[in-house]
């Protein structure tokens, strides 16, 4: 048990280091896209450690406690994440719904803390973040339920093994419509444009983060990196067939995150009502069609 | 669309509505009229009906010797391109002029600004008295001629003191220094010994 907890914490730490480095490399790639040199690849680490070294202001205990609760919730979520189909901390506890449930703890902690700051921009940002969450969860869950139905199991490692088994395609190819929906929902989860509405620096002054500075912001950054790690890994495991070894995982992870980032950087952002309308229109329709095709007709490539 | 005929058209409109004290043609596209304070509203109304729909500028000029403020309204008709300046003098003591918001709604903020900078009252404008550009101004309105920004600045904001040897002395630039000394002496003579 102790060993499992230790491995779990190591996975969370690994996720943080991995996502922070890949985030830094991505900043460089985006820099090239924007015709400039770009920062050093380890810039994100420096930013986070700098924030942790600063003095910060508190806005009451809810504000402080919410951040810690969110960070704790996210680290707990990351502990359950399998890296490859055989390497995970807690055997048989890698059910998909654990992640959905535990991710909400982090989100709610952040929402609580941001509302605790009392800044109106923050409360608008929190409202928008929760609305966006409602929007992307529905189509995403439909697609995932289709996958669970096909593979007959909701455990991530089982889903991975199902895709890796001979004769089965990875779900991105097997369920093309569902794969597209999954990727769009992933963009929404990551808060990439065009679904960046709840951060929106030029409209609501970076939304929930408006009152954070110093240590709390540093913790939020760590939280953000680990959240991205969880979400991208979920996509890799669910749709790209997971990984048999760690290098395959790193490769797939890098590709998914970079593609999402590149798409994000040539798009504008929607308004909040457009986000909701968008998700409830095409992705929802596509997800339902995919579910009907896959489950009732059994047409799976 | 000949500009000369446009100028004549303007002449006719203004002469039929009010008394012109002075007319100054400025260029092919611009003409100025000085009118009585009481005629301004009527002239603006008839000009607006004739197509001078745009109020380009509204402000005031201070003439302390005559003890008058001069209000300026500049109108433009895009289809018959002529700028018309309508000028009217008002008293400098307790200056007041009825607002032209009913004719040109766009004048609201110009009037507020004129009140702030010159102290002219505009009855009819709902909030001309509120402060707009400056915050808690504590002196006479700044664009009046008797306001001295230099004195105000010296009184209110400490300025940086530079020691005499602040700039490095260069042998090659001695002639420049002599010039500066000469200028300083000349300034002293001109201002009567004050700095």
């Amino acid at each position: 048990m102790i060993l499992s907890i230790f491995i779990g914490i190591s996975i969370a730490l690994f996720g943080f280091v991995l996502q922070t480095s890949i985030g830094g490399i991505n900043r460089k790639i985006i820099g090239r896209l924007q015709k400039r040199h770009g920062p050093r690849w380890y810039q994100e680490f420096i930013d986070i450690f700098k924030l942790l070294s600063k003095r910060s202001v508190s806005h009451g205990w809810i504000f402080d406690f919410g951040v810690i609760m969110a960070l704790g919730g996210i680290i707990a979520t990351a502990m359950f994440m399998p890296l490859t189909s055989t390497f995970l901390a807690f055997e048989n506890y890698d059910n998909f719904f654990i992640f959905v449930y535990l991710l909400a703890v982090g989100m709610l902690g952040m929402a609580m803390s941001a509302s605790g700051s009392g800044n109106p921009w923050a409360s608008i940002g929190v409202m928008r973040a929760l609305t966006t969450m409602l929007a992307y969860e529905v189509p995403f869950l439909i697609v995932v339920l289709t996958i669970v139905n096909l593979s007959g199991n909701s455990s991530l490692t089982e889903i991975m093994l199902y895709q890796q088994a001979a004769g089965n395609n990875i779900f991105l190819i097997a369920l093309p419509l569902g794969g597209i929906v999954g990727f769009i929902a992933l963009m929404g989860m990551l808060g990439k444009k065009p679904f960046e509405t709840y951060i929106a620096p030029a409209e609501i002054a970076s939304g929930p983060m408006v009152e954070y500075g110093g240590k709390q912001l540093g913790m939020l950054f760590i939280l953000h990196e680990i959240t991205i790690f969880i979400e991208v890994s979920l996509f890799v495991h669910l749709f790209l067939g997971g990984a048999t070894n760690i290098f395959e995982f790193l490769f797939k992870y890098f590709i998914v995150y970079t593609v999402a980032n590149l798409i994000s950087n040539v798009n504008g952002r929607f308004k909040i009502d457009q986000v909701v309308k968008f998700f409830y229109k095409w992705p929802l329709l596509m997800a339902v069609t995919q579910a009907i095709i896959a489950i009732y007709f059994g047409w799976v490539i | 669309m000949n500009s000369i005929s446009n100028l004549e058209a303007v002449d006719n409109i203004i002469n039929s509505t009010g008394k012109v004290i002075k007319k100054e043609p400025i260029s092919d596209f611009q003409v100025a009229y000085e009118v009585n304070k009481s005629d301004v509203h009527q002239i603006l109304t008839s000009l607006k009906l004739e197509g001078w729909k745009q109020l380009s500028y509204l402000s005031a000029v201070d003439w302390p010797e005559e003890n008058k403020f001069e209000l300026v309204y500049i109108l433009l008709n895009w289809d018959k391109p002529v700028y018309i300046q309508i000028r009217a003098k008002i008293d400098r003591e307790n200056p007041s002029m009825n607002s032209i918001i009913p004719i040109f709604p766009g004048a609201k903020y110009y009037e507020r600004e004129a009140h702030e900078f010159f102290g002219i009252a505009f009855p009819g404008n709902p909030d001309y008295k509120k402060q707009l550009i400056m915050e808690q101004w504590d002196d006479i309105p700044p664009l009046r001629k008797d306001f001295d920004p230099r004195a105000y600045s010296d009184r209110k904001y400490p300025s940086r003191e530079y020691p005499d040897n602040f700039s490095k002395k260069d042998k090659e630039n001695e002639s420049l220094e002599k010039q500066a000394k000469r200028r300083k002496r000349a300034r002293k003579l001109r201002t009567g010994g004050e700095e």
Partner: protein
Amino acid sequence: MKEMKLFLGPQHPGMHGNASVHLFVDGDIIKRSYLLPGMLHRGFEKQMERKLWVNNIALIPRVCVPEPDINEMAFALATEKLLKLDVPERAHWIRMIMLEFARISAHLMAYGGLGGPTGNYTLMYHAHIDRNLILDIFEKISGARIYHQYIVIGGVRKDLPEGIDEEINAYLNDLESRLNEYRDLGIDNPSVVKRIKDTIMLPEAVVWELGVTGIGMRSATNKPYDIRKVMPYARYNQVEFEVPISDYSDARSRLDIKIKEVQQSINIIRQCLDKMPEGEVRVKPSRGQSMRWTVPKGYVYAPVESSRGEFGYYMVSNGGTTPWRVGVRGASYPQGLLGIEKYLPGTRIDDAALWVDTMGICSPEIDR
């Protein structure tokens, strides 16, 4: 729900320049709004009354920062009208080159500014690097990047440097080839179009009510109301160009006109380089030493078409060595102050920053 008060600025990334929009919102919808100007006030009109005519040349470019040349042009035009001075032929053409470059740079900045409110920062980066090349050309011509003090009373400060023609032509070809890319990244990009189409409408009645000029007016009225066409200054009557118009004014059509105007400005500069005669570039406006220049009595209003609309100087001289009164008509005054108060309510918070950007609100010229 209770009305909540929000401050869009002065310290806010969506705000261009140092001004503040105060929003009273209910949910996401704006109920009331004001612009709080004055943060950039520096007593310009008072300062100019206290400085000599020649000293003012150094002061005026600072009225509007993104596009300083129009200030120099308006001041020079006004003074020349008072002096009844004829400017050498070549100076007119050089002035037009400078003004059109200034227009391109201001349009590129505003178009790149779309990247802020809509979140498409790549567009902003690309537009700014093209603008930076214009600043380099300015530096070669006048010696300064932003405040050139190049258009002076009686002509321009000095002649164009050797070999600048090829450089300008190369730059223009380069920019022209990239205009389609700008369209794809900005106004034709589906996710950006969703934000800018059918928002921030400007009906024709509102244009006349507020006194909006420039692109806002041309996009709403569908008529070529451009001072360069209607009452040409410099030599705009001798070059061929079109004034882009539209009959439907939303954020997208205004930005579309901006890109079209960049194309027209490119054409104008090319014609200027072709038609420019040789000769003097500057005449002395008045007798004697420059510190003792006097200008005859008179009142004059000199308008110039800036990138945001009609920009004018109202100048009064009483025959002395300094102007008696200088009034600046900021092009964005009506839509900045009255427009935000009257027509921003009803839109969403997201649109407030777009209003500031696409209406071309330049806070230094409102505050002066």
